[in-house]
């Protein structure tokens, strides 16, 4: 390590405080490591266990019925959160946004108007998944939400939707949410699934013993919805939302017939995909997962990523690992299991052990063994076909698929050129929502093979107030050496009129 390199602030920095991040933090802290956990939310839990601590303490009738509706899978996080809170070696920093990660273990953070870098000898990215972006006609209208957003409002805001509600899409979360709403006394007008019976039949080939529980659970959800008289269709296609100021109706095709329903709230969900904004901006190698129509970081089984940056930009080995749904979609159990594996690998890298135990690795395999079944039963639906020319793809800059296709056809045949020309991906979301569609459009037009290209990610990947940038702390002295273009013209008479040089 060079003289000027700042000392690490902790043995390990973990980005994200969901199931995988907490499981890894506990494992590492119990082994004696100092751990910093950075998380955007105010309390531990990630998306799945969001606001669990507070909801468990809520003894009101409404609170109890919410807990009952959210079910045992939600309450299951309580034990892990408690163990996480009990570890004194964990420096937990809530409400903290990560806006840059470097392969050498440097992590940029923002909390309110405070901003800086922290450094870990090892870094674990446990930032989770996102819902697959689904551009369809009308998706940007007020009154169109994702299932995850509705769950967030339920868990943290204690807000229940009202009016005529249509759920459309696919995946376990869609059915789970429909059930939760029903239990809270909200009866959806329709649950429209893009998956078909044939998907379920095909999925049975992938059914493993571990999947039986899920199958039973899923059938239970379907049964209860049916009993409650919630209308349900499968094989939904060509979804569109219509309305002047907000959603007034939804249209779709089922069995070749176009239908329109009045609607106040359209809840869409097309499965979840690894969130790749941090790995992409960190320069980690990504791979394209065709069947899931999504990227994921290319990692070793214990989560170690590979830097694609030139050597000038990343001296030394890459110390970034990825775990949980950020690495591979597997749900909470798989995330906790892999969090432990990644933690054990990190311990070995810090000379504290022999690496992941066989038992921990088996637990990951077991938890992931149900995925092929789920992937086959709920293939991407709403996002399966590329959007029509009139559909907005980049909502920050209000660009349609037609705008992008026209530019691609006129010669902007790589992602960064396309972004520079159209501004697609330059808005506040920095491409989180539009990048996958832009990449698929590009591939569709150019017929390029291989991993779909991404936009080059540059810091900050999340907005930072200008005033906070001005006070950035934890800088690397070598990186801050004053470097600006010196092109101020000299006045010939300078020596007589100018103050002496500093």
């Amino acid at each position, binding site marked *: 390590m060079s003289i000027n390199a700042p000392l690490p602030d902790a043995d390990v920095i973990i980005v994200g405080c969901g199931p995988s991040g907490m499981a890894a933090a506990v494992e590492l802290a119990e082994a004696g490591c100092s751990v910093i956990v950075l998380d955007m939310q105010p309390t531990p839990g990630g998306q799945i266990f969001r606001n669990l601590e507070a909801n468990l303490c809520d003894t009101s009738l409404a609170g109890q019925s919410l807990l009952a509706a959210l079910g045992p899978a939600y309450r299951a996080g309580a034990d892990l959160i408690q163990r996480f809170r009990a570890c004194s070696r964990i420096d937990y920093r809530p409400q903290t946004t990560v806006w*840059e990660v470097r392969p050498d273990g440097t992590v*940029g953070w923002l909390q309110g*108007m405070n901003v800086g*870098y922290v450094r870990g000898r090892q870094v674990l990215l446990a930032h989770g998944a996102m819902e697959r972006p689904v551009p369809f006609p009308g998706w940007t209208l007020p009154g169109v939400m994702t299932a995850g957003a509705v769950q967030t409002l339920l868990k943290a805001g204690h807000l229940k939707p009202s009016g005529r509600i249509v759920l459309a899409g696919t995946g376990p979360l869609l059915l789970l949410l429909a059930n939760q709403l029903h239990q809270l006394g909200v009866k959806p007008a329709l649950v429209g699934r893009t998956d078909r019976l044939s998907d379920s039949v095909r999925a049975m080939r992938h059914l493993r013993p571990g999947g039986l529980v899920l199958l039973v659970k899923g059938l239970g959800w379907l049964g209860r919805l049916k009993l409650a008289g919630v209308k349900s269709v499968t094989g939904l296609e060509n979804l569109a939302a219509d309305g002047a100021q907000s959603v007034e109706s939804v249209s779709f095709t089922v069995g070749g017939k176009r239908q329109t329903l009045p609607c106040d709230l359209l809840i869409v969900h097309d499965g979840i995909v690894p969130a790749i904004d941090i790995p992409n901006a960190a320069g980690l190698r990504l791979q394209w997962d065709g069947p899931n129509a999504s990227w994921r970081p290319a990692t070793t089984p214990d989560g170690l990523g590979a830097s694609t*940056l*030139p050597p*000038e*930009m990343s001296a030394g080995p890459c110390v970034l690992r990825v775990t949980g749904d950020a690495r591979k979609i597997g749900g909470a159990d798989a995330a906790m299991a892999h969090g432990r594996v990644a933690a054990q690998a990190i311990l070995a890298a810090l000379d504290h052990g022999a690496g992941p135990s066989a038992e921990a690795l088996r637990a990951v395999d077991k938890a992931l063994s149900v995925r092929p079944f789920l992937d086959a039963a709920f293939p991407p639906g709403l996002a399966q076909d590329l959007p029509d020319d009139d559909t907005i793809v980049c909502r920050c800059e209000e660009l349609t698929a037609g705008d992008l296709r026209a530019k691609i056809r006129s010669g902007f045949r790589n992602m960064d*050129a396309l972004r*520079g*020309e159209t501004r697609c991906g*330059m*808005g*506040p979301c*920095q491409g989180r929502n539009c990048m996958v569609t832009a990449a698929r459009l590009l591939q569709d037009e150019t017929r390029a093979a291989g991993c779909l290209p991404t936009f*080059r990610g*540059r*810091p*900050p990947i999340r*907005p*930072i*107030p*200008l*005033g906070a*940038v*001005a*006070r*950035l702390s934890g*800088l*690397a002295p070598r*990186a*801050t050496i*004053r*470097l*600006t*273009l*010196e*092109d*101020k*013209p000299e*006045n*010939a*008479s*300078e020596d007589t*009129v*100018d*103050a002496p040089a500093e």
Partner: protein
Amino acid sequence: MPRQNETALIIGAGLQGCSIALFLARAGWNVTLLDKNVAGRHASSVNAGGLRTLMRDWREYPLSELAMEHWRHLDRLVGAIAAESCEVRLGVGQIAVALDEAEMSWTLGRVQEMERRGLGTEELLSATEVRKMLPGLTDQALGGLVSRGDGHANPAASTRAFRQAAMAAGAKIVENCRVLGLERLPGGGWSVASSSGRYEVGMLVNCAGAWGAQVAAMAGQTLPLKVVAPSMMVTARAQPFLEPVVIGIDRPLSFKQSAVGSLVIGGGILGKPCADHDTSFTVMDRMPEGAAATLEAFPALAHVPVLRTWTGLEGATPDGIPVIGPGEGTPDLWHVFGFCGHGFQLSPAVGDVVGRSLVSGTVDPLLAPFSGRRFDAGDAA
């Protein structure tokens, strides 16, 4: 005499290369542009698009004024439709703000200096005037300088417009073509080995930007050039409040509000160049200086979110102005690079004057200050 009279090969199809190609092709020359990537991949397309005579080095000033004339009548060079696409906005003005005594003192000196040389249209602004022209400017501002005719344009669109115009005038562009070696032909002219074959030409023009010194070295000529990666910050959209472009004097300050409302903050903060990998990286560790300078001038902007940063590769000479002219002992090899981050505005004049010089066979007097000879031993800064 060159063996193949009136044939030129231009290495680097950036804005300067395309502009020279345009003027040469219009003069009837047979012009080929080679680019190791695609035309305008680097500094040409990703600079901030400033059209500035303000605070130009006096040696650049005449060239810059000629360039302004071309920007004002861009349709004559690239056609009306392409000119429209370049989003040329002249007359919004560029203003340099003096935020302390030293900067104010430099400003006064600058005015005298330009007057003495009989150059320019820079006007001194009092504290009151500068604050009136720049709403939100700190009360601490002591004054400033304005070039009312200055403005900005869209750099990527402009590069494209010059490229198209050069092609329309007959220039050929070969992209994804790397120059491998240069060899002087016995009777004059050059043989150029490239990844797309060999070219024999009468005149060779090195417009290789950040790679300019590398190309010069292939001809055995040494010119001082540092590869730099000027970087910028872009904020979320804010209510339009600022028309002129604002630049600093000693501070790393340079910003403007774009048409959509976002603030584009530059100021010469440098990122990390990786020229061998054809790319560059922004370094957030260096951004605080630019952010602080912006806030010192406009304190109310503290809560505006920075959304993104960008950077591009550029070549910088030791004295802050480009090399434009024939190489040592090679009237048939010209170097045109090292624009130090402010070549965008100059480009139409560079094409005009270099083209004129090559056609006439004599170096135009406007180019006298840019000779590479100024770096010969003893002369270098």
